[in-house]
């Protein structure tokens, strides 16, 4: 008789989900599935709205990474206008997008995942929370708070508020950067660099103690996808698509974002609201790919900033070819924070950054526009069609978390198969099944364009469908 374990809800992630683990007659894990149980439907409710509303409207998809949606949506709208935005406007958008990367990665690493890293996967769950972290490593907790503040304060300075700023608009940004705000941001950079370098040193000292997790947390060959610039460096705001295989070989490069339908397709599974994008030339599910911090550091030729490049060189020594373990999303996240801080400083030092001309104005000149950018969790796409009045007639959004859906499912299966023995799940095993998902820092509210909080459940089900064990949290 086969059995199924259900973890419902999954905790310390953004959104609602559950996990089911199916056992065979001998009690071995036969299959495991990650189900996203929330639905929102932004693509549908956007229809009929004026296109200029789309950045503000789609930013409401998420309270964690609204800037990513603002940026990507504005880029799609730029295409509808067919304008070339002023250089300062583009660089100010880049700065806000990087500030978003810092604050979102800090949230993921320090607030969501550090309890596992600091206290251990098998530590008492009653202590495995942020108070446990601040008691064990108060400096790490202070660094996390400071780095998240750093990112959020830049967003607030540029956009007027921390969440859902309306400053990024079709054609550019609504206001230039003031000299006072420029000085404020520049003054904060040295301290932020100290804190992220200290955190990187801490992480490099401890990750070796997670050998079993590194070996089993979604450690398998896949493709990796993301945007790179013309030199193959990190590109969060613009760039073109590069796809790399598990041995680090470039399969495709400089693919046009606007032609994404040539190389990305989306499969739909009956047990989840989250679609499963895949690399079209390899078919489904063989075209499984990963996006986000790990993928970005696997596809690039270098980061493009001095300190991040040093760290990236060390990171790439972890494995010949691509780094395959999703556990190292954590490591990659920290390097990207370092890169983002350095890159912001570079952009703020550009001579035109205080220019007053930051927005181009036009009426719609095209009926279709595609925007693509790198959100903290990976490649984000908005694709709009409008009518002659400028009203939205069709929308497609491929969300970063959705791009990782196949890999998250496969990762849950790998962890479950390695750690689960028998009909019951110990708390430590439950935490590992959740932790593999946390590596991806999924934002399920975004990826299903859904509404609500993010608890998790795990169910253990027999071959004949009997529910044997169930754990719910959140």
């Amino acid at each position, binding site marked *: 008789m086969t059995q199924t374990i259900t973890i419902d809800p999954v905790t*310390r992630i953004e959104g609602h989900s559950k996990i089911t683990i199916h056992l065979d007659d001998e009690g071995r894990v036969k299959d495991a599935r990650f189900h996203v149980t929330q639905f929102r439907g932004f693509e549908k409710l956007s229809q009929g709205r004026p296109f200029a509303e789309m950045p503000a409207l789609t930013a409401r998809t998420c*309270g*964690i990474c609204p800037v990513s949606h603002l940026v990507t949506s504005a880029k799609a709208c730029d295409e509808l206008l067919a304008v070339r935005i002023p250089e300062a406007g583009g660089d100010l958008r880049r700065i806000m997008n990087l500030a978003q990367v810092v604050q979102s990665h800090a*949230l993921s690493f320090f*607030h*969501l995942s550090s309890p596992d890293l600091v206290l251990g996967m098998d530590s008492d769950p*009653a202590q495995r*929370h*942020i*108070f446990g972290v*601040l*008691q064990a490593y*108060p400096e790490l*907790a*202070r660094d*996390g*708070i*400071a780095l*998240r*503040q750093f990112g*959020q304060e830049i967003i607030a300075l540029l956009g007027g508020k921390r*969440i859902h700023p309306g400053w990024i608009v079709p054609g550019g940004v609504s206001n230039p950067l003031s000299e006072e705000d420029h000085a404020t941001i520049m003054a904060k950079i040295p301290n932020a660099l100290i804190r992220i370098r200290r955190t990187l040193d801490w992480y490099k000292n401890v990750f070796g103690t997670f050998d079993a997790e590194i070996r089993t947390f979604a450690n398998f060959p896949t493709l990796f996808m993301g945007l790179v610039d013309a030199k193959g460096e990190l590109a969060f705001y613009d760039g073109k698509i590069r796809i790399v295989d598990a041995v680090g070989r470039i399969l495709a490069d400089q693919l046009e974002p606007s032609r994404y339908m040539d190389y990305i397709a989306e499969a739909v599974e009956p047990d989840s609201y989250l679609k499963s994008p895949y690399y079209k030339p390899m078919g489904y599910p063989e075209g499984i790919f990963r996006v986000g911090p790990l993928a970005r550091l696997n596809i690039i030729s270098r980061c493009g900033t001095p300190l991040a490049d040093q760290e990236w060189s060390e990171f790439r020594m972890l494995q010949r070819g691509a780094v395959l373990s999703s556990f190292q999303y954590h490591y990659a996240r920290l390097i990207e924070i370092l890169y983002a801080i350095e890159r912001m400083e570079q952009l703020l030092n550009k001579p035109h950054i205080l220019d007053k001309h930051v927005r181009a104005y036009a009426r719609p000149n095209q009926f279709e526009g595609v925007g693509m950018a790198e959100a903290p969790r990976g490649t984000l796409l908005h694709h709009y069609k409008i009518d002659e009045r400028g009203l939205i007639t069709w929308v497609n959004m491929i969300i970063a978390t959705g791009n990782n859906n196949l890999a998250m499912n496969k990762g849950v299966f790998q962890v479950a198969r390695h750690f689960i023995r028998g009909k019951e799940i110990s708390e430590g095993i439950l935490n590992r099944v959740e932790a593999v998902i946390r590596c991806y820092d999924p934002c399920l509210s975004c990826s299903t364009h859904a509404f609500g909080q993010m608890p998790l459940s795990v169910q253990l089900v027999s071959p004949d469908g009997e529910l044997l064990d169930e754990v719910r949290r959140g």
Partner: protein
Amino acid sequence: MSRALLIGYGNPLRGDDGVGWTAADMLAARYPELTVITRHQLTPELAETISHFARVVFVDATAVGQPGDIVAHRLDPESVTGDLYSHNCDPAGLLKMAGFLYGRAPTGHIVTITGESFGYEETLSPTVTAVLPQLCAKIEQLIA
């Protein structure tokens, strides 16, 4: 009052859940020297901010009680034993974090007002609107 911080939080797009914002805005206009913050949710970053103040007052809506009820009580950081969610912290938990991480925890109070309507609207219900003066008076006592 310059050492006092007022934090109004809730969702101003959900009717009476935005009463913390309304009260905070009213008192900010009345007392320019008062530091006022409005938030949808309480997050760990606020621990660093509140550590710089001698007193902090949180203002929130609640669904518990009769609409219009105003309740104030002092926060006890030592009562906090459980988890803090990453972007939905507890006021007492923030005081505890401030004390532990920064060595300075202000005295803290929370003032709640029972809402009547939490629908998709940007206005307060007549019941809550009617008791806003009492709510502000209670907050003024605590930050004075």
